[in-house]
């Protein structure tokens, strides 16, 4: 871990790192191109007739992707079977809704408190929960979900709004911008949140924290015996995840101009779970892909009405059992095979034959 070693060792390490740490090879052009496309796309879309509708879908996609990624961070990477994600989303939403609705704060100010309060709530749940094993976490987080729902429905009037949630929460106003212009601003705000969250989660996954988390997930006994403080790591991860989920909750509240108690409905949770499972459980880009697929498909699935839930449940079950990797690894492998950059030459063969450490660096297709 600590590279407080001799200089030659450090130099030797730097050479190995390229292959041992595939995430360092960021495809800068691809990332940059995607961001530029994201900036330019709405400008094009506003010129075509259904463009506005597509922009609202993209906004929805950005927010769902943020929540799905945060959930994947703790569920897929951390192995914490938390079902409190929607409740934390609601905590964020309610925080900013109450601040702007009851106290009359500017939405741009009050939304800053959404992630903070969600984070505090997560620490509150995490302290008793995260010491326990998987099954207990499922139960206690589901319990928190139910409690939050009961509180949102039967709580004091400034929270429950009489049992249906808060309506007439102030929406985001950008100067005098209205209509299409305002939609563009909303889009860019959503995109900024998405980019920040994605970058932060990418950093977390590829930091020592992320490595420790993955180690714990894959072999708890070994990880703990190597001195990883499991509880602390899990709590930090849980808090990070809650932070971005709360932020997304705050954004959606002001975007919709209200938050209803129907956010607690089970189908919402299942949609998010489907995004993670279909896209790729425990992969970096999986939830983003999954969010795109679910939101894209949803437009067509509206037609089949009640069959949608049946189909979604069955797909979820079949993918979980027969293709637990999800779709993303499939896409990534295809990309690497035909279009990807040449993998760097295996360093083990270059200098001295290191026994078994760097034996097959190219086969580790990356933790991402």
């Amino acid at each position: 871990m600590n590279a407080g070693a001799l200089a030659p060792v450090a130099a030797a390490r730097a050479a190995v790192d390229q292959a041992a740490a595939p995430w360092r090879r960021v495809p800068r052009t691809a990332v940059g191109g995607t961001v530029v496309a994201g900036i330019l796309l709405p400008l094009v879309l506003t010129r075509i007739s259904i463009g506005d509708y597509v922009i609202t879908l993209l906004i929805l996609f950005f927010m769902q992707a943020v929540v799905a990624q945060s959930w994947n961070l703790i569920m897929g990477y951390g192995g914490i079977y938390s079902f409190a994600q929607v409740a934390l989303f609601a905590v964020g939403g309610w925080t900013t809704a109450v601040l702007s609705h009851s106290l009359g704060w500017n939405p741009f100010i009050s939304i800053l408190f959404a992630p903070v309060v969600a984070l505090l709530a997560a620490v509150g749940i995490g302290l008793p929960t995260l010491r326990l094993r998987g099954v207990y976490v499922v139960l206690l987080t589901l319990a928190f979900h139910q409690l939050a729902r009961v509180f949102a429905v039967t709580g004091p009037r400034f929270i429950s709004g009489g049992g249906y949630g808060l309506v007439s929460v102030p929406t985001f106003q950008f100067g005098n911008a209205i209509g299409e212009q305002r939609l563009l601003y909303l889009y860019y705000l959503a995109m900024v949140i998405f980019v920040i969250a994605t970058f932060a989660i990418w950093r977390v996954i590829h930091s020592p924290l992320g490595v420790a988390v993955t180690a714990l997930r894959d072999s708890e006994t070994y990880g703990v015996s190597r001195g990883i403080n499991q509880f602390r790591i899990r709590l930090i991860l849980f808090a990070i995840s809650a932070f971005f989920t709360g932020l997304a909750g705050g954004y959606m509240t002001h975007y919709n101009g209200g938050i209803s108690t129907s956010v607690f409905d089970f189908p919402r949770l299942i949609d998010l779970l489907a995004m993670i499972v279909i896209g790729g459980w425990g992969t970096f880009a999986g939830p983003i892909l999954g969010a795109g697929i679910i939101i894209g498909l949803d437009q067509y699935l509206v037609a089949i009405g009640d069959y949608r839930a049946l189909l979604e449940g069955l797909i979820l079950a079949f993918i979980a059992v027969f293709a637990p990797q999800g779709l993303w690894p499939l896409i990534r492998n295809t990309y690497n095979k035909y279009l990807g950059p040449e993998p760097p030459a295996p360093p083990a063969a270059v200098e001295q034959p290191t026994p078994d450490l760097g034996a097959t660096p190219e086969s580790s297709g990356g933790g991402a």
Partner: protein
Amino acid sequence: MSTQFVQAVWGGVLFGSVYGLMALGLTLVWGAVRLLNLAHGAIFIVGAYAAYWVVAFLHLPILIALPFGVLFAGAFAYAMHLVFIRPVIGKPGFDNSTLVATVGISIAVSAAALLIFNPEYKVVPPVLSGSTIVAGVQITYQGLLVIVTSLALFGLVYAFLSYTRQGMAIRAVSQQTEAASLMSIPVVQTYGLVIAISGALAGLAGVLLAPTFFLNPQSGFNPMIQALIVTIFGGLGSIRGALVAGFVLGIFESFVEVFYGVSWAQPGVFILIILMLIVRPNGLFGIGEVRRL
């Protein structure tokens, strides 16, 4: 005072026996297969709807519908085992896969119930009708039947596990899977047996409870959460724990309901379980990782 007290005790014992019945299935499956069956609530409504179907569409008496519902729920659980559980047994991602798969199944079952029947509340006739009044509280015969049945089933399951070949095989598998398979116990078939038994128990709970709770596509969720709480409270995999915890939690919830109001019942139970887990992380009768069942 006394009426309220009797009311609370009666409600508690009734709820407790039902929670115990649901939790018994969950705890059996957890103990033997190490599977957290989040589709348990779905199997509960499968049994109840099957019985409803027999009564409403075939116009047969409930005494025929009851075994039909139980068998149907057991068969459903076994089919679930064949399709979704068996392929992943022994694979590295067993926990993830089964967790997501059982959630998916429970969604699909609710959706199917919504499509086949409709969202309206269904009424399944009670097996025994009529009631008597004790200290101003109405005691239904159906309620008494539920309590007696669930106590009898606990005894039956306990005897089954202790004295029959199959039961001993289940215990062996749950204690040491590898050693059991070396003794030529068919491990995977034993898993299937346990899951089918658990499904039948959930179905029985569904049929017996439907007259009290009414039946709609979502009504499996709350009993399942309660059963989960009971299972964990009693100690995962412990049958005695499920029985005791069922009554403890049922009576606790009932007293909170009667004396503090219905809206406090569920939060109260959650707070109790959180405190419990802080004090005894393995539950009331939790026996750690070595010995189960």
